[in-house]
């Protein structure tokens, strides 16, 4: 197949946060070689830089490699042309996110910060309106909140995430006309779940064990918090066990996301030198989520929730913005796409082996 060189893609990508540094790449191959995740058939970031430089859109959309990267930053640090391959991978992930998203909303949000902020405000107003209808009563609010969370999860999963994953599957496997052996689908599914929950591939990145532990704890905290609030109704539970588990996972979330926020602001690490608004939203909102949940429960325990309902109210706004905007259309998806990317990548290898 002959690809048409199309330099206009470059302009398109600029809107996803990356500076044009990657234009400077002169293809020495250092980034690919310095990366400890690259293998025989998994060659990034250079190959991706090349495809971006030449504007091979159709080829790029079928690529899952950017999801495999955990951004240790070594490629950018050692790049002889300061072409920032690591940051390109991040921007390219954003680009892929909008390609997977069937609604087109992700595209709108990534390209236009005002649009996203307006959506955030609209959601907040919605919650306020609901608050008004409930007369700002703690019990009613919390009951509503509990149901709301549940429905949002189901709706987002079925209407957005699942179709998007299917689109991803189509781009990566079906469009490439890969003949994946049926057995491979099953044999690799275990690693899908392992990766989803443990991100164990992270460990391949040299010297980055601490960052992996942080990531792992946040995932555990976040998923724990999700399960404990939605399925065990943490805010209203009387079970001591549930209550304390909730405290622990809630703390995990805001403590480690706070560290992430600090790192992003200090810009010391290669991976936190550049931050797209979506990166900030993600860490800050996750932090707020954990913190407000934690304080809410303390207030419940102290019997002071009625007088301090505004805390829960903020929590609800954060949850709504998180669940309706950031999860389906924001950076949250990288958590899902990454695990599936590893899965699809394995399927791809299996197909190629055959």
């Amino acid at each position, binding site marked *: 197949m002959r690809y048409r060189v199309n*330099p206009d893609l470059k302009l398109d990508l600029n809107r996803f946060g990356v500076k*044009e540094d990657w*234009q400077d790449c002169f293809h020495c191959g250092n980034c690919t070689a310095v990366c400890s995740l690259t293998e025989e058939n998994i060659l990034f970031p250079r190959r991706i830089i090349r495809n971006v430089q*030449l504007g091979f859109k159709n080829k790029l959309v079928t690529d899952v490699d950017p999801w495999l990267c955990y951004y240790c930053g070594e490629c950018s640090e050692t790049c002889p042309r300061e072409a920032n391959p690591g940051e390109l991978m991040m921007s390219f992930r954003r680009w892929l996110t909008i390609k997977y998203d069937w609604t087109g909303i992700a595209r709108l949000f990534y390209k236009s910060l005002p649009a996203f902020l307006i959506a955030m405000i609209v959601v907040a107003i919605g919650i306020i309106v609901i608050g008004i209808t409930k007369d700002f009563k703690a019990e009613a609010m919390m009951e509503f909140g509990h149901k709301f969370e549940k429905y949002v999860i189901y709706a987002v999963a079925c209407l957005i995430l699942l179709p998007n994953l299917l689109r991803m599957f189509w781009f990566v496997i079906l469009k490439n006309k890969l003949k994946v052996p049926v057995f491979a689908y099953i044999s690799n599914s275990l690693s899908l779940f392992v990766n989803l929950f443990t991100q164990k591939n992270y460990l391949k990145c040299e010297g980055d064990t601490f960052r992996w532990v942080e990531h792992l704890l946040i995932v555990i905290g976040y998923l724990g918090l999700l399960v404990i609030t939605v399925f065990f109704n943490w805010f209203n539970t009387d079970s001591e066990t549930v209550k304390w588990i909730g405290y622990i996972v809630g703390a995990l979330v805001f403590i480690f996301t706070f560290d992430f926020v600090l790192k992003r602001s200090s810009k010391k690490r290669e991976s936190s030198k550049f931050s797209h608004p979506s990166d900030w939203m993600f860490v800050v909102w996750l932090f707020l989520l954990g913190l407000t949940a934690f304080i809410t429960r303390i207030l419940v325990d102290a019997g002071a929730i009625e007088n301090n309902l505004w805390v829960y109210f903020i929590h609800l706004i954060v949850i709504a913005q998180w669940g309706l905007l950031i999860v389906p259309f924001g950076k949250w998806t990288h958590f899902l796409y990454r695990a599936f990317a590893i899965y699809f990548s394995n399927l791809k290898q299996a197909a190629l082996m055959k």
Partner: protein
Amino acid sequence: MMEDTRIGLYVCWCGTNIAKMVDVEQVAKELGDLPNVVLSKTYKYMCSDPGQDMIIQDIQENNLNRVVVAACSPRIHELTFRRALANAGLNPYMFQMANIREQVSWVHTDREEATKKAKSLIAGAISRVAYHEALEKRTVEIDPATLILGGGIAGMSAALEIADAGKQVYLVEKKAQLGGQLLQVDLTFPFMYSAQQLRQMIIEKVVQHPNIQVFNNQVVEEVNGYIGNFSTQIKNGKKKETELKFGNVIVATGLKAFDPQGIEAYAYGKFPNVITSLEFEKMLLKGKIQTKEGKVPKNIAIIHCVGSRNKDYHEYCSRTCCMTALKFANQLKSAIPDSNVYELYADMRSFGKGCEELYTKTSTKGVTFLMFDQQDKLPEVIKAGKNDGCEMLIQMDEKLSGEEVEIPADLIVLMVGMEAHEDAKKTGHSVGISLCGNSFYIEKHPKLDPVATTTDGVYIVGNCQGPKDIPDSICQAKAAAARILGTINKKQVEIEVTTAFANEELCCGCQTCVQVCPYTALSYEEEKNISVVNEALCKGCGTCGSACPCGAISSRHFTDKQILSQIEGLMEMILQEEISEN
């Protein structure tokens, strides 16, 4: 022989270079017993100061009158030792060198056999040196004027350097205008300085210089004479001839652009919007970048290595095209900011001062670089289809992505390489210099003497020696000027003494020697029906002597007697060795 022959023999270790493979002590000891050998010694590095001092001291203390050094190739250190002899008050030609490094230790692996061979080579040298005769240095006067062929940047720079010292220069240019390739250049790489300012300034200086006489539209047919005393007649068409006399010659005839018509894949001449880099330079000079149809191009492709680095055309790299191409890309991005510029290259050779930086800058401007295989798979230019939105397409195997790609193009610039002028050989012959396989003029030594030639007093500078950019050309021009100013300053120059000489009585006037001499040193004298040697031109190569059917010509320092005695000495030693073995 009038006096006693007293030979000193010195065998060099050359560190371990020789000593490892040749038993130098044994050699020195055994050969020290040969007749006429007064003393024999070995030393770690004969060429070093202490080594030479030892020889000098021995000559003075032991009344040596001949010296043999067994060491490396005479090409390397013969002069060194001759000078040592002279310092000791001995005629420098009473010396013979035996090459036991390049011809023995470096090429053999059996120490015993190698030692034997070394012995016979040295025995030959000892036998030969006994017949050496003292030769005296000769000098010629230098005519302070200089002839320069070619009025490009190299020729003009050389002219100014010499003329500014107050010496006369004759500058001969084939074309009507001075300036050469610089005439067609807008900006220079990598700093985008104005080439036109440079051209105007330098031409004005040359034309107005009281010591430079410019001959436009003229050519030199034949240069006669030798260093210090050349003469020629320069011709303006058929009209006028001017007779010039000068002491040195600088050849700065440059190169010409490769004609890409022979490369089918690029469709030059077929599609009007495929142009050469020269044609593009003209567009830039005019200030209008447009297609033949008068439109502003949106997609411009620049193809590198056209006619270079490919065995079908020229194997060599033309050195300046990569940088010129980067310069073009920058100028294009400047003139048409929303254009797409593609550089199709093989290896990016941006090696000079500020050049890698220009490459980076060009990348930053969003120029797309694509790599092709310049030897086996050239890109192909085809006509675009109706829906392609451009006029032409380039199809290529892109090596950095591993994909087959096509590139839309409205204008294609071919970075044509440089090649020798058709008359390079003729010009070279007229001044007595020769061409290498690529038809560039050959320098005396590729590294340590890049502007001199094997003909004394004739220098090559600028592109005619090999492709190069403006600063490098100017450096060479000035380098040649330095050498010439040096000889002018000294007013005279030493010339070869190991020349041929003819025995008038034996000469039969057949003129065979006149035909074979590569330096035009022999001429026929009709009156006496004999050949005569011009010793100022003769390099002592010996071609005439071996061709002479009557044995009338012999070369100083290479007489039959000397050579035969060398062979005798050599064979005798071999014989002796064999006898002792059996």
